[in-house]
């Protein structure tokens, strides 16, 4: 494993793209992009100006650029980092200097969360429209049976008609938005 390890020494300066399936240790300078499927170690004295992608990243030197790790990111006490970090696990030791945005957790989880949120929004609109008619119908049927709650029902009946009114409005606004797309597409096609 040690023989397969890639080392960029102190006096070495790489401009461009480094990628592969080996572990990479940087003592020198890298400008551009690093994309490896094993561990990336940026040693003290190293200067990396690159967007970095690896299984895990340990920074003890200077790194300017975004970090994406599938496992973990660790900034040691000697690290100086500017850029966003995205990894399931992020550790910053005391003494490290960092500026940027950190995102933990899997990207898939975020996507599914945002997707379910969108589904929730779109689902509430038809649900409200679907629930409105039964509410209108139910007071007329139930009202004679229970007298004490009768005062409350006119309120629900009064509230219900605006819902039924507002429900048809939404489709019309949606239809109003569609021509804007249709027009753009139509003009492009022409």
């Amino acid at each position, binding site marked *: 494993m040690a023989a*397969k*390890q*890639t*080392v*960029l*020494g*102190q*006096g*070495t*300066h*790489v*401009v*461009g*793209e*480094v*990628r*592969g*399936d*080996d*572990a*990479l240790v940087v*003592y*020198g300078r890298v400008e*551009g992009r690093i994309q*490896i499927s094993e561990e990336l170690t940026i040693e003290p004295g190293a200067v990396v100006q690159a967007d970095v992608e690896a299984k895990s990243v340990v920074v003890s030197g200077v790194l300017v650029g975004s970090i994406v790790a599938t496992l973990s990111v660790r900034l040691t006490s000697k690290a100086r980092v500017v850029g966003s970090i995205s990894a399931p696990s992020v550790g910053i030791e005391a003494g490290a200097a960092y500026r940027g945005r950190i995102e933990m957790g899997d990207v898939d989880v975020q996507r599914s969360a945002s997707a379910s949120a969108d589904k929730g929004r779109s689902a509430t609109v038809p649900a409200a429209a679907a629930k409105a008619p039964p509410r209108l119908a139910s007071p007329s049927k139930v009202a004679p049976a229970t007298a004490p709650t009768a005062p409350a029902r006119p309120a629900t009946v009064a509230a219900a008609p605006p819902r039924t009114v507002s429900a048809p409005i939404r489709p019309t606004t949606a239809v109003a938005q569609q021509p804007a797309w249709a027009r753009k597409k139509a003009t492009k096609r022409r």
Partner: protein
Amino acid sequence: MANTVIGTNITIEGEIRGEESLTILGTVKGKVAVAQGLIIEAGANVEADVEAQSVTIAGKLMGNVVARERLEVRPEGRMVGDAKAARFVIADGASFKGNVDMDV
């Protein structure tokens, strides 16, 4: 410790400059310029113009070479490109195609 080694499964596209020796086992495309020795090991694939004090080729090199001291193509080495070196060794079994200039 700090010598530069580019492993078998690593690809570098771009420019490598160095003040020390460089050993390539993987793939390099672009340009390589090091102050000391450059070793292209067996299995390595380099498509680059290369400049170093001494160059040893046991892998595959496509590109021009400037060696300030010595250029050696080992028996398992393959080289296509122009070679400029003070001393030039082509081992028996090596493959070479290009111009040679030994008047540095």
